[in-house]
C-alpha cells in the first residue's frame, strides 16, 4: 500500500502540489437482519480504493479511484492537482495548514472476538432466538433484529512524511418490537433505537447485550403502550435516559462545535452554528455541573469516535468543550485551528471511505459523569417525566431550537415511577436546556453510546460518533409539544 501512496504523492508533487495526503482504505462489512422470524438482509461487502487530497495554487483538490495500479493511481493524483488548480479560479484566500509532526505508526483497535470469525450460524441463531422471544408476546405485530460488523483498514501517507496504518473493528446490534392496534403504531427498541448499540468492539459487544433477556421486556412494553396515558403537555421536570441524552449531546453540542459549520462551510447543506467565534470562553453553555469533552483517545472508551490518528494524520486528543458550564472549545482541523487561536488541529478530520474527502467530524463528544446514583435521582424527583429511547429528533440549522420524542415515558410522582406514558416529547432552546441541568448520574450509569448514521458533507458522508452519557435531570422543560394541538 505504501508504494501506491508514494506513487500518488510523487505524481502530485510533480504536477505542482505543495502538499498532498493519501488514504488507501479497505472496508469490509457484514449485515444481518431478521424480520418476523425470517432472515431479511444477509450481505457482505468489501471496498478498496485510494483518495488523494492536494493543495495546489493555494487551493484544495481531491480525487479518488478504485483502480489500484501504478497508472491508475498516478492518473488519480494528477486529476486531484488539476481540480485544485480549478479551485484556485474561485479562491479568496490561500489555504494555510497548522504545523503537524510526521508520524510513522501502526495501530489496531482492541477487540476480544473478531466478529468476522464468529460463525454466521451462531450470529443468525441469536437474532432468530431474540426475534422469537419478541413474537411470543401478544399484540406484537412486527419484530426486527440486526447485527452489523465492519473492519476498516486505512493507510495514511502525507507529503510531510507520515505513514500511519490503522485497523478499526466495529460491531453493532439491536432488536425492536412494533405493535399496531386501534389506529396506533407503538415501538420499543433495545438497547437503543435505529439499529441498537454500536461500538469499536468485537463480537463481545453483542454477547454483552443479553438480547434474550430484554426481547420479551421490550415486546411487552410495545404492546402495553397502546393502553398507556398520553404524555401531558406542560412545562416541568424531565429525566432523560442515557441513550436519549447521547443523541441530545450529538445534536445540540456535537454539531454546533464543528468549526466548519461555524465558519459557514456547511451553510448550504448541514447548516451553520449559533456558536460564533466571539462565544468561545464567554458563553455560559450549561449549568456548572456540566462538563463535556471531545475525546478520540482509547482512554475515553471504545466508541465510534475512537482512533489513534485522524484522517489528516493528527494524533487523537481530548478537547474540553464545556468546562464547569462554560464553552471552551471547538472541533478543528489543520486548516481552521488558527482561527480559534490554536497552533494545532484538535484532530477531528474523518472520512467515510477512500472516495470521500476528510471533513471535520465529532469524535466521542461526551458528557462526563456526575455524582448521582440513579435510584437517588428518581427518589429525589417529586414530579417529573422520565423519557427513554429516541423515536424522532429534529433541530434547526443553527442548532438553537430542538424537539425530540422518545419511545416510552414514565411519570414520576413523589420519587417513584408511577405509570407508563405514550408519545412522550420535549423541546427547547439549546443553551436554556443545558443550563437547566441539575443532576447527572455517576459513572456506574454512564455508557459510551454509538451513533452510526451521522450525515454531513457533500457528497454526503455517513460517520459513526460516540457520546458518553448517564441519566440526567433538567428543570422547566417544555414537554408534550409534538402532539399538542393535533
Amino acid at each position, binding site marked *: 500500500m505504501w508504494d501506491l501512496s508514494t506513487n500518488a504523492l510523487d505524481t502530485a508533487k510533480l504536477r505542482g502540489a505543495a502538499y498532498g495526503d493519501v488514504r488507501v482504505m479497505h472496508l469490509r462489512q457484514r449485515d444481518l437482519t431478521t424480520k418476523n422470524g425470517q432472515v431479511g438482509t444477509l450481505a457482505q461487502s468489501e471496498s478498496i480504493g485510494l483518495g488523494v487530497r492536494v493543495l495546489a495554487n493555494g487551493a484544495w483538490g481531491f*480525487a479518488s479511484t478504485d483502480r489500484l495500479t501504478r497508472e491508475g493511481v498516478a492518473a488519480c493524483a494528477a486529476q486531484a492537482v488539476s481540480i485544485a488548480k480549478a479551485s484556485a479560479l474561485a479562491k479568496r484566500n490561500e489555504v494555510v495548514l497548522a504545523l503537524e509532526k510526521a508520524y510513522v505508526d501502526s495501530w489496531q483497535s482492541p477487540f476480544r472476538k473478531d466478529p468476522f470469525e464468529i460463525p454466521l450460524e451462531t450470529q443468525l441463531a441469536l437474532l432468530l432466538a431474540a426475534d422469537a422471544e419478541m413474537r411470543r408476546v401478544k399484540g406484537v405485530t412486527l419484530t426486527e433484529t440486526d447485527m452489523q460488523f465492519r473492519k476498516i483498514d486505512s493507510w495514511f501517507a502525507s507529503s510531510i512524511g507520515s505513514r500511519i496504518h490503522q485497523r478499526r473493528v466495529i460491531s453493532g446490534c439491536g432488536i425492536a418490537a412494533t405493535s399496531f392496534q386501534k389506529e396506533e403504531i407503538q415501538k420499543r427498541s433495545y438497547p437503543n433505537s435505529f439499529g441498537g448499540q454500536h461500538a469499536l468492539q468485537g463480537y463481545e459487544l453483542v454477547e454483552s447485550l443479553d438480547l434474550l433477556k430484554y426481547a420479551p421486556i421490550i415486546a411487552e412494553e410495545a404492546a402495553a403502550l397502546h393502553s398507556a396515558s398520553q404524555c401531558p403537555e406542560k412545562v416541568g421536570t424531565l429525566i432523560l435516559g442515557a441513550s436519549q441524552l447521547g443523541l441530545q449531546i450529538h445534536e445540540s453540542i456535537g454539531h454546533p462545535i464543528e468549526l466548519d459549520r461555524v465558519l459557514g462551510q456547511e451553510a448550504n447543506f448541514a447548516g451553520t452554528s449559533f456558536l460564533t467565534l466571539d462565544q468561545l470562553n464567554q458563553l455560559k453553555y450549561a449549568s456548572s455541573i456540566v462538563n463535556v469533552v471531545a475525546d478520540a483517545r482509547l482512554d475515553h472508551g471504545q466508541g465510534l469516535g475512537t482512533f489513534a490518528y485522524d484522517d489528516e494524520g493528527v494524533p487523537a486528543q481530548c478537547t474540553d468543550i464545556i468546562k464547569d458550564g462554560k464553552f471552551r472549545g471547538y472541533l478543528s482541523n489543520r486548516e481552521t485551528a488558527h482561527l480559534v487561536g490554536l497552533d494545532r488541529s484538535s484532530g477531528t478530520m474523518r472520512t467515510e471511505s477512500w472516495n470521500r474527502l476528510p471533513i471535520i467530524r465529532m469524535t466521542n463528544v461526551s458528557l462526563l459523569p456526575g455524582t448521582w446514583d440513579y435510584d437517588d435521582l428518581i427518589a429525589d424527583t417529586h414530579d417529573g417525566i422520565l423519557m427513554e429511547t429516541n423515536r424522532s429528533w429534529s433541530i434547526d440549522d443553527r442548532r*438553537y431550537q430542538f424537539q425530540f420524542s422518545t419511545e416510552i415515558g414514565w411519570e414520576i410522582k413523589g420519587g417513584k415511577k408511577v405509570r407508563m406514558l405514550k408519545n412522550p416529547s420535549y423541546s427547547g432552546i439549546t443553551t436554556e436546556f443545558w443550563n437547566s441541568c441539575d443532576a447527572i448520574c455517576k459513572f456506574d450509569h454512564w455508557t459510551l453510546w454509538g451513533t452510526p448514521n451521522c450525515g454531513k458533507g457533500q457528497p454526503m458522508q455517513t460517520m459513526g460518533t460516540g457520546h458518553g452519557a448517564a441519566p440526567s435531570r433538567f428543570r422547566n422543560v417544555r414537554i408534550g409539544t409534538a402532539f399538542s394541538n393535533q
Partner: protein
Amino acid sequence: MKAASKTRKASTGASAEAADLLHEHELRRIIDTVLRLAKCTGAEETEVHVDEVADALTRFANNAIHQNVAEHGLTVSIRTVADGRTARATTNRIDEGSLRAAIEASLSLAQSQPKDPRLLPMPGKQRYRRVNRFFKQTAALSAEERARAVRRACDLTVKKEQVAAGIYSNGQSQSALGNSRGLFATYRETHSEFSITAQEGPAASWAKANSADVRAFDPQKLAARACQKAHLAVNAHELAPGRYTVILEPAAVLDLVGFLFYDFAATALQDKRSCLNERMGKQLFGQSITITDDIYHPLQQGAPFDGEGLPRQRVLLVDRGIPTNLVYSRAAAKAARKQPTGHGFALPNEYGEAPMNLVFGGGDSSIEKMVASTEHGLLVTRLWYIREVDPYEKIMTGMTRDGLFLVDNGRVTGAVRNFRFNQSLIEMLKNVEFLGPAVRATGEEAFEMVVPAMKVRNFHFSEVTKF
C-alpha cells in the same frame, strides 16, 4: 489472476474530467464472467449487479471554492441461491480471483441460514421501455467550467454584499443487471445539480435545481433568485406559533410528502407499519390530490427496472384523494396474490419495495396567484430536518429554513423568524386549497419528485426559533 475486463479506462493524466464509463459489452463481460464462475461453485442461481459511477462536485462557501472532489468507482454485487437459501456479497475488485471470492462469500452466507420457503426463482428475460437520460454535455462538464460558474455566482453575491455557499456537481452512472436465467438489463444516466445559499447578515435564502441535462438550469439565475430572496429575508420579526395558511414552494412540498413513499409499499402494509393500513380505498386526502409513481415521466430519472430486473410499471397510487394501489415486489405480490409492479429492492432485504418516482397531479395556480389570494399567511421556501413523530397519523416535525415570509392582504410584506412545525401529512393533504403546476423539485430530505407548489390552510407551527 486474469482480469474480467482489460479495457477499463482511467482518466487521462492532467485532465480534471470525469473518467469514461465502461461500454455495455464490458459490463456484460463482467456479468458473464461471474455467471461462468458461479456455475462451477455449486450456485443453483446467480444474479449480478454492476454499478459504476463517475461524479464530480465543487463546493463553495464564503464566496470561494473550499472543496472540490471527483470520484470513480465500480462495484459488482453477486446474489447466489443454493438449496432454497440466498445471500449477497459485493466487491469493487473485478479480477477473477476477487469475483470468485465474492461468489464463495455469497454462497457461504446463503448456506448459513435456514431454508426460505418463500424464496422465488429468479425472473427470466424481460423487455424494457427505453428511456434516454444521458446527456453528453452533462458528462463533459469540467472542473474548470464548474469553477467559472461558481466564480460568477460568487461575484454576484459579493456585489450584493452577501455571502454565498453551495455546490455545483455533475456526473454519470450506469447499472447492469444479469442473472443465470438470461435476464439482462442496462441503464445509464447523467446528473447535474446547482444549489446556492445567499446570506445577508443573519438572513439567508436558497435556490437549487437538478437535472439529467445540465443545460436545463442556469446557475446565474439561481444565484440571482437566492440573492433577491436573501435580501427580502432581512429584519425577520417574530410571530406567535399557531395555525397558519401556508404557501409551500415545490421544494417544501417535496421534502414533506417524500415521507409518504414507503407507506405505499405492499410489504409495509403486510408488516402493519404503513399509515395506509385499514385506509386503502377511503377518501384519505382532498380530491385535488392524485399521485402516480411514474419512472417514465419526462422530469423523472432512474432505471426502468427494479432490483430483481423486473420492468418498472406506472402505478396510480392516489386517485382524487383515495389511496388506490400499492407497489409490489415479486415476493409481496405473491403473498397478496397480485402482480409485481417492478418496484422491488435488490434481494435479500426486509423492506420489499417502494415507489421512488412520485409524480403529483398539478393545478394551474402560480405562487403569485396563491399569494394574491391570501389574506394572512406564510410563504415557505424550504423545510429542514423533517422527522416522523407519529407513523400512523403521519405527524411530521421540522423547521422552516432559508426564507419564511409573511403574506398580508395578498402580498408579501416581510420576513418572519423560522418556525418548528408538527403537522400531520394526512391532514395537510386534506387541507390543500390551490395547486401549482407540477415541476421537478429538489430538496435535501427526499428523492427528487415531480410536485406542485401548494396553498394549505391550518398548517400547524408549534414553536419559534431565534432567527
